[in-house]
């Protein structure tokens, strides 16, 4: 029982640790690709939390085997939820990366602070002129 308790602590603690570390990347780092990596780490932590919530000691994977005697099984629902969540996560990530590539092409940086400065710069200032030269005025049609 003691061992079970420490497994539980390890898993939940590990999941919480992933979430906190990922959150650090999101709030404190400035490069947008690093921020997206942080989001991926947070999602990993949440997925671990869900799967751990459905775990039962001594239970089998939720796949029936006609040859074996059927014993208790772990909860299949969180596993299905996590499968869905993994694919959703990668889809959002890919869209974010596409946006990041396009932004980098237009402005030449992915640093959040620099991007804010460029966007808020009044027209004609050095920053906005640099941006115009670089992206050729971007996509304004």
């Amino acid at each position, binding site marked *: 029982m003691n061992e079970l308790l420490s497994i539980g602590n390890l898993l939940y603690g590990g999941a919480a640790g992933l979430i906190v*570390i990922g959150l650090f990347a999101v709030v404190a780092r400035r490069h947008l690709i690093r921020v997206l990596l942080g989001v991926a780490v947070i999602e990993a932590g949440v997925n671990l939390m869900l799967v751990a919530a459905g775990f039962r000691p001594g239970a089998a*994977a939720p796949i029936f085997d006609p040859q074996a005697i059927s014993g208790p099984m772990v909860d299949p629902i969180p596993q299905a939820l996590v499968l869905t969540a993994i694919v959703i996560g990668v889809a959002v990530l890919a869209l974010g990366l596409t946006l990041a590539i396009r932004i980098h092409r237009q402005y030449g940086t992915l640093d959040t602070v620099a991007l804010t400065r460029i966007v808020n710069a009044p027209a004609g200032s050095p920053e906005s002129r640099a941006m115009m030269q670089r992206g050729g005025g971007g996509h304004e049609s």
Partner: protein
Amino acid sequence: MMVWVVAILVSLMLIGAFLVVAIPDLLGAVAASTAVSLALSVLFVVLRAPDVAMAEAAVGAGLAGVLFALALRKTESRRTRDEEAS
């Protein structure tokens, strides 16, 4: 027994996550995030979730890693000059 397996995997994962945040080289950070996903997928096997483990290995470690690496090559920003701690 299982406690040790879990402990090793969880600490691998946390070290990987720390590296994702801390390595100055972004490509290294992507590699670290792949390592997190791999440790996680082994952990899913330990937790009797083979389906999830397969998906995490294929999508989380493989595909997401490829996507990040491609994006880094496109933005040519392996060294994050912009990202000095302020």
